[in-house]
C-alpha cells in the first residue's frame, strides 16, 4: 500500500479505496429514465477527474537527502523560526506583544518544506499561526517581530499584529484570524493563477496557490465551500491541512468526524489527497514538490493531511489541560530540527561546530529582531485613519466634535459633522 519514498519518481496514486480511480463507473450502467439525467448517473462528464484518490506517504521514512546547500537552508530556516518563536514567547511575557500569540514551535518543517517546494511567484495564504510561514517565505525577522510589537516597521505597519503577517513582495497573502476563512481566499488565488496564466495570457499554467489551515478549520463551512469550488472548477489550489491534532484545546477525535482519515473529506470533493509526515522536512519537501509540480502540470487541486504537532499551547495563555506531558515529550523526541541535524551529521554535510556557528548566527538574528522592534516607533495617532479606503475619506472621527481628535484648533461651540471636507 505504501509507496517507497526512496523510489521517488512520478506520482503514484496508491489509493486506499478498494476500487481506485474509476469516476462514475459504478453508476455507468444505471438506468436513466426518460432521457433526463440530472444526477449525471449515465454520463462521465469529467473523465479526467479521479474521485479523490488518496496517497499515503510513510512516516519515519528515509527520505533522500537534497543537495547540501538546500539542506542547510532548511535547517537554518527551521532554527530561525524556532529561535524567533522563543523570542516571541519571552517578549509576550514581557508584555511587548499584545493580545494573543500563537507560536509555531514543532511545526517548522511544514512551512519550511512547503515553501521550498513552491516557486517565489506562487501565492501562499495561511491562518493565524503564521510567523513560521512569513519567515519561511522570506519576510525579515525584523518586520515580523515589529508587527507583533505593534510598531511602524512591522509588515502591516504594526496595525495587524501576530495573526496578520502579509508580505506582498514574497506573495504571502496573510495571516488570517478567522478560522477557515482563508481557504476560499486561497481558492480565489488559485483561480487567479489559472485565469491570468491560461485565459488572459493564453499559455500554460505557471503558478499554483497554496493555502494552509489547521485541523480545526476542517469543521468550518468555509473550508467545505472552498474545497467544493476548487474541485468543481479544477483549480490549481493546494490545500494543506497542518494537522497537529488539536483545534485549540479539542483533540481531532473529539471535534472532527473521520479525524483519523481526514483525506476522506477531500474524496468527497473529487480532490486527490495525500498524507504526509510533517515532522520531517525532507518528507515535506519531497512530497510537496511532487504534489506542487503535479498540480502545476494538471492544473488541478490537491489536499494534504500534513501530520505535525505543536509543542506549545494553542496560544500563550493555554494551560494544555487537554493533553498529557508524556504525549508532548513523545513528539518532542521526534523533533524536525533534531531529525535533519542528525541526518546532516550522518551524511557528513554538517559538523557540530558548523551547527553551533549557525545557531549563534540565527540567535543573533532573532535577538536583533527584538532590539529592532523595541527601537521602532509606535504608529502615529494619524495611522488610525489611514488605509480604510484607497482614496482617503474622513474624518472617521470618533466624536461628534472633530476637535476631540486633537491637532485641530479648538473653537468655541459645536460644529456639526455634515461636510467631511471641512473636518480636520
Amino acid at each position, binding site marked *: 500500500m505504501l509507496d517507497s519514498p526512496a523510489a521517488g519518481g512520478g506520482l503514484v496514486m496508491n489509493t486506499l479505496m478498494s476500487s481506485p480511480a474509476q469516476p462514475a463507473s459504478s453508476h455507468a450502467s444505471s438506468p436513466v429514465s426518460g432521457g433526463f439525467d440530472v444526477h449525471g448517473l449515465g454520463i462521465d462528464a469529467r473523465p479526467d477527474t479521479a474521485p479523490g484518490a488518496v496517497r499515503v506517504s510513510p512516516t519515519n521514512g528515509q527520505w533522500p537527502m537534497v543537495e547540501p546547500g538546500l539542506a542547510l537552508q532548511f535547517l537554518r530556516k527551521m532554527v530561525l523560526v524556532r529561535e524567533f518563536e522563543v523570542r516571541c514567547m519571552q517578549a509576550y511575557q514581557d508584555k511587548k506583544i499584545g493580545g494573543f500569540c500563537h507560536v509555531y514551535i514543532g511545526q517548522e518543517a511544514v512551512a519550511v518544506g512547503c515553501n521550498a517546494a513552491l516557486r517565489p511567484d506562487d501565492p501562499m495564504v495561511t491562518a493565524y499561526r503564521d510567523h513560521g510561514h512569513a519567515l519561511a517565505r522570506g519576510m525579515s525577522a525584523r518586520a515580523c517581530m515589529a508587527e507583533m510589537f505593534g510598531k511602524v516597521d512591522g509588515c502591516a505597519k504594526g496595525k495587524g499584529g501576530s495573526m496578520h503577517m502579509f508580505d506582498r513582495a514574497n506573495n504571502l497573502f496573510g495571516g488570517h484570524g478567522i478560522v477557515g476563512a482563508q481557504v476560499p481566499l486561497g481558492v480565489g488565488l488559485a483561480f487567479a493563477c489559472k485565469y491570468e496564466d491560461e485565459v488572459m495570457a493564453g499559455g500554460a499554467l505557471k503558478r499554483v496557490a497554496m493555502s494552509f489551515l489547521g485541523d480545526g478549520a476542517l469543521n468550518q463551512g468555509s473550508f467545505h465551500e472552498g474545497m467544493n469550488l476548487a474541485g468543481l472548477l479544477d483549480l490549481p489550489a493546494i490545500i494543506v491541512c497542518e494537522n497537529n491534532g488539536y483545534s485549540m484545546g479539542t483533540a481531532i477525535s473529539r471535534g*472532527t468526524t473521520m479525524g483519523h482519515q481526514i483525506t476522506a473529506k477531500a474524496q468527497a470533493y473529487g480532490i486527490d489527497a495525500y498524507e504526509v509526515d510533517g515532522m520531517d522536512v525532507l518528507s515535506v519537501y519531497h512530497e510537496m514538490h511532487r504534489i506542487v509540480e503535479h498540480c502545476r502540470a494538471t492544473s488541478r487541486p490537491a489536499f494534504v493531511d500534513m501530520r505535525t504537532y505543536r509543542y506549545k499551547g494553542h496560544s500563550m495563555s493555554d494551560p494544555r489541560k487537554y493533553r498529557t506531558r508524556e504525549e508532548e515529550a513523545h513528539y518532542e523526541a521526534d523533533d524536525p530540527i533534531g531529525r535533519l541535524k542528525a541526518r546532516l551529521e550522518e551524511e557528513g554535510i554538517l559538523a557540530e561546530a558548523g551547527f553551533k556557528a549557525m545557531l549563534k548566527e540565527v540567535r543573533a538574528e532573532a535577538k536583533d529582531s527584538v532590539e529592532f522592534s523595541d527601537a521602532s516607533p509606535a504608529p502615529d495617532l494619524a495611522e488610525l485613519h489611514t488605509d480604510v479606503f484607497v482614496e482617503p475619506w474622513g474624518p472617521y472621527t470618533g466624536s461628534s466634535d472633530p476637535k476631540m481628535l486633537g491637532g485641530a484648533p479648538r473653537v468655541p461651540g459645536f460644529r456639526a459633522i455634515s461636510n467631511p471636507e471641512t473636518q480636520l
Partner: protein
Amino acid sequence: MATLNLVQAINLALIQEMEKDDRVLLMGEDIGLNGGVFRVTEGLQARFGKERVVDTPLAESGIIGTAIGLAMAGLRPIPEIQFEGFLGPAYDQICSHAARMRSRTRGAFTVPLTIRVPVGGGIHAPELHSDSPEAIYAHTPGLKVVMPSSPYDAKGLLISAIRDPDPVIYFEPKRIYRAFREEVPEDEYTLPIGKARTVSEGNELTIVSWGASVVQCMQAIENSGRDIELIDLRTIYPFDIDAVEASVSKTGRCVVVHEAPLTCGFGAEISARIMERCFLHLEAPVQRVAGFDTTMPYYKLELDYLPDAARVGRAIEDCLAY
C-alpha cells in the same frame, strides 16, 4: 453575599439556571474541558456532564444553527462564541433564522436562545477580537441585545436572558471581565431586559453609555467634579428610551459614549430619539464620543481608539459650555 468579578458572576448565573432547569445546556468551542477561552464556563462540564456542557467543533455557523434547532424544540441552549469577531461566520444563522423564526412562523415557533459573546476592546487584542458590533444586531428585528457593565448586572441580566422566550445576544465586555469585584447575591435574581440603570444621579448633564465604557464615564464624571447623571443602558435593544428621556428632559444636555465606530453606532439612534422626544428641553446638541470609523487597531493605538475618561471629559466640558 459573595464579592465576585464579572466572570464569576456569569459562571454563578449559569450554574443556578442549569440546576434549576435541565432544559438549559451550554455549547461552544473549548467551553467544557478547557472552561472556555476566558474561563467563564470553568468547572461546568465536570459539574453537569458532557451532554449538557458540549464541546463543539470550531464551527460558529454550525454551533448557532444547532442551537436554533435545540431552541425551536423547546430547550434553552446557551452557545458561546469566543469573540465578537467570530460572529461573522454565524451571522446568517443569527440574523436570517434566529431573529426571524417567530415572525416567519407567525408565532408557531420561537427561539429561546442566549448567545454569550465576549465583546469590545481594551485587552490588547487585534481586530476581530476587540470589536463592538452591538448596533448590527440591534438593527436586526427579532433579537434582544444585552450588555452588562458590572458583576451584579451581569448575573441578573443573564438569568433574564436565559429565561427570555426570544433570542438574546448577551455581550460580555471582556475589558472588565476581571477588572473589579462587587457584591453579588448568592440567591438568584433577575434584572429586567429593556431597563436602564441610573449609575449616578445629577442635574447638569446626562451621559448614556453601556458595557465597559460605563467605567470610563464614571471616571470622567469623577474627574469633572460636575453634577452629572450617568445612565447605563444595560440593554441595547429593546432600549430604555423612557429613562433617557426623563433624564435629558431634566438636564437638557446629553453625551452618548460607546466603543463602536461613530457612524451608525447605537449612539446615533439614542441621539435621534432624544431629538424627537426632548427637543424643547435641549440646551446643547447631543454629543457622541465613540470609536472611529476605522477597523479596530492593534494594541499600540487601541487606547487612542477607545473612548476614555479624558475624551469623555472634553465632551462634558464642551457640552456644558455650549
